[in-house]
């Protein structure tokens, strides 16, 4: 089932999207407590693809070409953020399909926490070092543009993406951090100060195959002029005009359409 997400006006200042992309189906998983699932579906549509709603308790991946695990507070974040979601029936299918390197999977915020709990990505998240809930437009450096989700960006470029979380401090042991750095698996790094104490300013990482990416900030909130951040790393924008997050979604669509 594809989901119709109505677009309000044509405020996006993105060049006309590639019509070939509409055949690419990107699933977005809804858990009890997911908040940004509709935003993620909308981001897929704005990038030119077809969003497919997936339900955590189902066993059917509905033939999607990629999966997004959205932000929010799955299962209320009881126990630990992402800990219970990991055992959802649909997560077992996603983990099986993604661990071999074939299915592209993006975890945003709570989705990133779920991916670490599912062992699709290393490390873990703990409370922000200042213990405050954080909500701000965050500048990030794109450190790896070879993943399934970042090929639309050039390496070393910067983006401005909103972030909002309580458990956003990325931690891992020194050996794991060295491995991530050595293998170029740090995908995004915080620029202009570390907002939450994350080890080595890490905001996003990928797995060995580059198909699974997790990041703390929310690219789906920076895809439409009129609703994004007030600034962009790609030049002047109108108020709420930043659409730097759109590249995440066009990356995976372009990669899949060229496969």
């Amino acid at each position, binding site marked *: 089932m594809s989901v119709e997400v109505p677009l309000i006006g044509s405020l996006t200042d993105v060049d006309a999207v590639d019509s070939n992309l509409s055949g690419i189906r990107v699933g977005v998983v809804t858990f009890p407590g997911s908040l940004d699932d509709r935003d993620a579906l909308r981001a897929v549509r704005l990038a030119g693809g077809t969003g497919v709603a997936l339900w955590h308790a189902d066993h059917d991946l509905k033939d999607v070409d990629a999966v997004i695990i959205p932000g929010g507070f799955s299962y209320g974040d009881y*126990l*630990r953020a992402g*800990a*219970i979601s990991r*055992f959802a029936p649909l997560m077992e299918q996603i983990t099986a399909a993604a661990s071999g390197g074939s299915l592209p999977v993006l975890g945003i915020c709570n989705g990133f926490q779920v991916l*670490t*709990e599912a062992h699709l990505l*290393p*490390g*873990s998240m*703990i*409370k*922000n*070092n*200042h*213990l405050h809930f954080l909500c701000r437009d965050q500048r990030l450096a794109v450190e790896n543009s070879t993943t399934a989700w970042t090929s639309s960006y050039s390496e070393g470029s910067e983006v401005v993406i909103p972030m909002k979380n309580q458990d956003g*401090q990325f*931690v*891992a*042991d020194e050996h794991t951090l060295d491995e991530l750095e050595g293998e170029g698996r740090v995908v995004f790094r915080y620029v202009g100060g570390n907002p939450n*104490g994350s080890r080595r300013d890490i905001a996003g990482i990928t797995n060995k195959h580059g198909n699974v990416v997790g990041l703390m900030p929310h690219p789906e909130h920076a895809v439409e002029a009129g609703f994004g951040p007030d600034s962009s790393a790609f030049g002047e924008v109108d108020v709420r005009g930043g659409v730097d997050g759109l590249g995440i979604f066009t990356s995976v669509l372009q990669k899949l359409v060229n496969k």
Partner: protein
Amino acid sequence: MPRIVVDVMPKPEILDPQGKAIAGALPRLGFTGFAEVRQGKRFELTIEGDVTEEVLEHARSAATTLLSNPVIEDVTRVEVIEDAQ
């Protein structure tokens, strides 16, 4: 009914932001002399029937797979307690 208690603590090398905040608040309330606070979790698993070795093994397994995340936490206790009547 007997209960199995599972204690989970943040690993010593992991900064514990909640414990740190509590440690900061204690002296403000006059509770001085505590050098550090670590905040963990206690789970109580109530058992119907007898606690066999198999039941205990299930509890240990649950403790390391779901109740704790081995990247950031240690299971420090898995122990049977009987209800005091």
